[in-house]
């Protein structure tokens, strides 16, 4: 019990104290982004690491979230909370439809279908100029306001984003350690065996997919309201690839993997000034190198190292 909650409690304390030390708005802004990406990757990680499926349309769900609350609050003056509920319902409904179509088939049809859905949403966001603002984007999204309290600074957004992250992290951790979580893990080793043990494979996979899409939508909502401007670019395939790379770098199937990947790959472009032109080649190479040489990601490598050290220490203790 203590062992399970210790890391996240320690992480929470550190996260709560960090802005008191680091007051630079530039760094605070980056930390907000890391938090947003961590939320988006958490869901995708659940899907990849536990259900063994891959989605290339998470950018589209992210954009759906951002555009739904963005349009409702900026254009139609709907209060934030009902807009948020609408965003979650719309995303979940679309994800459910795609999931039902693809996940009842064996194989990785989901990858291609989500790619297609992402492309369709990208096309629609660009083409529906009167509604979404088209390629020039949607501006003037207000800050998140709940019960009269407005999250109108990076400082307040920081606490909102990371509180939500910790909440979702605890929730996801509980899912993984619950009965359905064990059922999920059983899918990874053998779908047939899992089905024989009475696991409803298809329904479970669809649930995970919908949940992961909702996480992406929540991250999108936070993104839209913190930068106040969104364009169809957020639903671009490259963004899905970026999320995917974060997970692969951090470690598929490790809850902390997404956070580590998100932090590293958000800081990387800040550190390299000539990043823009080389972005695609760099992301592609990182992705390729990781899956070829370190398929379990950094978390997997740490775990292996830790196990080896424990072994060495024990062997010495015995000898």
């Amino acid at each position, binding site marked *: 019990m203590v062992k399970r909650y210790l890391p996240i409690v320690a992480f929470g304390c550190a996260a709560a104290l960090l802005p008191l030390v680091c007051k630079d708005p530039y760094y605070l802004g980056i930390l907000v982004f890391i938090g947003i990406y961590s939320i988006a990757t958490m869901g995708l990680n659940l899907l*990849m690491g536990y259900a*063994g*499926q*891959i989605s*290339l349309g998470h950018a589209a769900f992210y954009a759906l979230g951002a555009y739904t609350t963005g349009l409702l609050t900026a254009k139609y003056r709907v209060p934030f909370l009902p807009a948020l509920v609408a965003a979650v319902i719309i995303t979940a409904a679309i994800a459910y439809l*795609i999931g039902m*179509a*693809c996940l009842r*088939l*064996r*194989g*990785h*049809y989901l*990858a*291609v*279908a989500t*790619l*297609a*859905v992402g*492309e*369709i949403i990208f*096309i*629609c966001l*660009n*083409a529906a100029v009167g509604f979404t603002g088209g390629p020039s984007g949607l501006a003037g999204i207000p800050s998140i306001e709940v019960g009269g309290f407005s999250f109108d600074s990076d400082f307040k957004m920081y606490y909102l984003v990371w509180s939500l992250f910790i909440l979702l992290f605890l929730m996801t951790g509980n899912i993984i350690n619950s009965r359905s979580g064990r059922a999920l893990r059983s899918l990874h080793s053998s779908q047939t065996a899992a089905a024989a043990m009475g696991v409803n494979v298809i329904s479970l996979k669809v649930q995970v997919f919908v949940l992961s899409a909702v996480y992406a939508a929540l991250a999108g909502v936070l993104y839209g309201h913190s930068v106040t401007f969104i364009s169809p670019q957020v639903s671009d*395939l*490259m963004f899905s*690839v970026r999320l*995917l790379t974060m997970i*692969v770098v951090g470690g598929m199937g490790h809850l902390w993997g997404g956070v580590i990947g998100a932090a590293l790959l958000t800081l990387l472009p800040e550190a390299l000034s000539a990043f823009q*032109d*080389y*972005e*695609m*080649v*760099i*992301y*592609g*190479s990182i*992705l*390729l190198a990781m*899956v*070829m040489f370190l*398929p379990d990601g950094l978390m997997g490598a740490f775990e292996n190292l830790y196990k080896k050290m424990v072994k060495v220490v024990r062997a010495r203790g015995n000898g």
Partner: protein
Amino acid sequence: MSDLSQIVQFFFTGITIGSIYAMVGLGFNIIYNATGIINFAQGEFVMLGGMVMVWLTASCNLPLPLGFMLAVLIVTITGAAFERFAIYPLKKPPALILIIITLAGSIIFKGAAMLVWGKQTYSLPHFSGEEPLHLLGATILPQALWVIGILMAVVGLLAFFFNFTMLGKAMRACSVNPVAASLVGINVKRIVLLSFAMSAGIGAAAGIAFTPIVLMEFDRGALLGLKGFCAAVLGGLGNGTGAVIAGLLIGVLESFGTGYISSEYKDAIALGVLLAVLLVRPSGLMGSREAASLKEF
């Protein structure tokens, strides 16, 4: 323009685009049959074909036929090198990893093309002039006939290869059962290499033929690849004849959709077809339902 000539016009435009989708779909099927992988880099081979051809003919001043052959050869080698470098070294990788690898490959190809050729759009001279032909009141570019002709040549060569050559038969054996194929002495690893080389080559030929009509730029590959995949799925994944028919069908649908409904949403038509097929009949038009339920990739 009368109604009939308009219909003929849309039909021909559709068949031309459809030929490209058919070739991309064929490329998907060749790799899928040999390895069970969906190659996400398929569309990039089309883009590379067009770009390399532009570079060879415009910058190196090679004549068209020589440029064509050399461009196809270069992309074929690129495809083979990709297999040797990124897929060959792994021992029995799970499908999820293979998908990520081909996706990474596609981004690297795209990014590299952007670094080499920049973000501008390139054109290529038509193979045999731009004097349009007239048929029932519709105008047809000679280049469109080239595209259709190249599709027919590819289909003919593939039919000959798979039915009458030892290597082609070995490849078919691999797609039925790789373990059994290796037991009778077929080098499965070499077949996988060959499949990547072949589908890269076919993609390149499609890209070269297509570039004079639509121009080419570094980020064209993904959408072309996705539409080719629509053709492969609609025809029944792994089914060559199906991919050709479905590719042409999607091209025609898209062309009529552009003409009669809206040009802004034209790219969504093929993708909508893909989603509909997955929902209603995932085995595709020509595939058998039973075979589809056993497939795993």
